[in-house]
């Protein structure tokens, strides 16, 4: 227990979490601080590419393992099914309309890559490895939840014609993650030696600045839309990642993943999308209120996962796997 608290404390005082807190505080205090859009996007591209590469390199040295096929299938199912639970909870706990609840549910089935990156960074600082191909699982988990959300919202056929399927399946994060994963896998540890100076050494520092930006965005969202978040919704934003995380952890454990792998799958299941799904919802469910789904995912669930959730998932994974 005291070890758990030490772990939690170490995480809370890490430069990564503190950078997020700085951004959040600055935005809430209406400080005149902002990160250029191009810089935010550049950091996001860098992080996706680097994490994809790392996964591929690991696979090149460890081999794929037999669980990859079941792992990918499990990721798909988690993404497609978690929205059902989320939707049921939302209808119970919050007064959200059907379409708003469906939109929010879609976010929780999908994933947040930066939460994944933060978790992998925490694992690394404890020297805990995880299966490299979980990067591919993360990519697979991006989109299925969108389908479930649309089904839940009972969308009419007329508008569904407008849904940009290709863009969802080939969105930037998916392509970057899988592409970099393949590059890492093909080039292997040898080929990577020369590009480590860019993709490994500065990784955590870039993550700090990126989390500063996430804090600014989350704080701006909270300032603009806090009034939309009734207590029931806020509770959902904290309860849901713990439920999703637990489901993900049990799945990972059933799949026989390593301790680190279990924690990562838990984190993926627990995290809520704030890039791919919101953009899809804007087009597919324009009647849903973006103030609700964006603020909940980025202003409540993301900080919860960063500050507390990831540590919890890791502790649960350790306890289950004895790792």
């Amino acid at each position, binding site marked *: 227990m005291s070890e758990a608290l030490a772990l939690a404390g170490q995480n809370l005082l890490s430069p990564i979490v503190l950078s997020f807190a700085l951004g959040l505080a600055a935005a809430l205090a209406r400080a005149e601080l*902002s*990160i*250029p*859009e191009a810089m*935010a*996007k550049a950091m*996001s591209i860098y992080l996706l590419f680097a994490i994809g590469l790392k996964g591929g390199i690991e696979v090149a040295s460890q081999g794929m393992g037999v669980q990859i096929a079941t792992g990918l299938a499990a990721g798909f199912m988690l993404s497609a099914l978690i929205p059902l639970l989320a939707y049921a909870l939302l209808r119970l706990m919050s007064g959200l309309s059907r379409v708003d609840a469906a939109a929010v549910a879609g976010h929780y089935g999908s994933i947040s890559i930066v939460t994944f990156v933060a978790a992998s960074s925490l694992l690394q600082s404890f020297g805990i490895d995880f299966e490299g191909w979980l990067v591919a699982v993360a990519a697979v988990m991006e989109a299925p939840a969108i389908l479930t959300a649309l089904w839940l919202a009972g969308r009419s056929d007329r*508008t569904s014609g*407008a849904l*940009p399927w290709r*863009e969802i399946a080939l969105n930037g994060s998916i392509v970057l993650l899988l592409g970099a994963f393949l590059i890492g896998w093909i080039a292997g540890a040898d080929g990577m030696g020369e590009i480590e100076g860019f993709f490994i050494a500065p990784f955590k520092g870039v993550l700090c600045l990126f989390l500063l*930006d996430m804090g*600014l*965005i989350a704080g*701006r969202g909270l300032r*603009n*839309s806090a009034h939309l978040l009734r207590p029931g919704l806020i509770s959902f934003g904290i309860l849901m990642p713990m439920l999703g995380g637990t489901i993900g952890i049990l799945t990972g454990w059933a799949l026989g993943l390593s301790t680190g792998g279990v924690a990562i799958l838990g984190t993926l299941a627990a995290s809520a999308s*704030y*890039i*791919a799904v*919101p*953009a*899809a*919802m*804007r*087009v597919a469910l*324009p009647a849903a*209120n*973006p*103030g609700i789904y*964006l603020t909940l995912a980025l202003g409540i669930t993301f900080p919860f996962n960063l500050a507390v959730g990831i540590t919890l998932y890791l502790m649960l994974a350790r306890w289950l796997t004895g790792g």
Partner: protein
Amino acid sequence: MTMETHTARRIEIIIETPALRTLRRALERSGVKGYSILPIMGGYGRTGSWSREGEVGMANSMVAVLCLVAPDRADAVLQAVYEVVDRQIGVVAVSDSQVVRRERF
């Protein structure tokens, strides 16, 4: 060189970036000969303020589409535009302006 000018409709559409692709397709099908997309940095509306700064995704940003079109083609174009914008939160404003080289609109 004083060039002959013609009236064209100046159609200005403000729309969420995620819906831009749908709008572009609609415009191109409706027979416009060209349009230009201008970035918007931020704004204010019934749903509060927004800003492009620091955003990684596009869900929270809007763009302006500017389309000059010959009067005889304008109605078809506007109808196509309204059909898209009707479902979204966008704004459409139409005015008249003078252009040269009529064949380009």
